[in-house]
């Protein structure tokens, strides 16, 4: 592994929109698509694209159900997504520590 923590940062998570999505999902078991969209002030298209990227990386699970005959899309972190996010935060903390020592 590269000794520079910056180079080890997960590029899938290290993007403003996806990092925000991962942060929201890390604090709660699940969130609906609309809750995330409203909290992050994202457009439907933008959020969908980011979710698809995270889904393809295996970090987010998307479930489509119906509530009172209306479609309800909920998202949650997968175990590998949770681990990747924890690792991402750990690397950020290391970078902060390195700058503090300099």
């Amino acid at each position: 592994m590269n000794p520079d923590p910056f180079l080890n940062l997960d590029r899938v998570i290290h993007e403003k929109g996806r990092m925000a999505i991962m942060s929201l999902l890390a604090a709660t078991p699940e969130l609906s698509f609309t809750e995330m969209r409203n909290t992050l002030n994202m457009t439907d298209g933008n959020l969908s694209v980011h979710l698809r990227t995270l889904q393809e990386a295996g970090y987010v699970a998307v479930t489509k159900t119906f509530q009172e005959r209306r479609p309800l899309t909920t998202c949650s972190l997968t175990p590998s997504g949770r681990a990747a996010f924890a690792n991402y935060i750990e690397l950020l903390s290391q970078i902060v520590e390195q700058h503090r020592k300099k």
Partner: protein
Amino acid sequence: MHPTWATEHLQVIRTLMERSAIYRRALAPVMLLLGILGIVAGVSGWWFSVSSSRAFGWYWIAVSTVGISGAYLMVRRQSLRDAEPFWSPPTRRVTLAALPAAFIGFIVSLLILQALPQGSVEVAWLPPIWMALYGCAIHAAGFFMPRGMKLFGWLFILASCAVGGALALSWIPRSSISGHTVMGASFGGLHLLYGVYLYFTEDRKNEA
């Protein structure tokens, strides 16, 4: 890259994680409903002379049941409209936080109303007990809600102390009429005032 970017990233993550855990449903309509219900119930209780301790207790337990059911129905309506789950993790957290104080309130009320001999506890003492426990429930739920809810809980706790003190010093009569007045003014008036405040200050996009 600026050396503080990692710190800023961590700060953003922390803020978003906190925001994610907070209950976000619009509270103004719920507060207005509870306020109007409390005032109408207070006036009705006085008007229809609901005066024995047992009748007074069951009357207000029924009113609170209607109020809680109405509040959850409004929240459900909001969640359906916004295509969001009703029994979401924040809703679960808020409910579970408020449950112990609400449960104690129900058990204490049952003991006072059914198990103890009729008239052994003066009816006017029930409102401050309920106000204190309701304040505790709201305060506990406030840890997962916007900051004002904890202050609202404290308001009920302090109001219960004031009413309890006034009763002990006989500044207000220990009668069912004063009980209905206290219930109407506290559960009705305080909810209504907070509802009006939230109506003008709360984020309107979630409103029912």
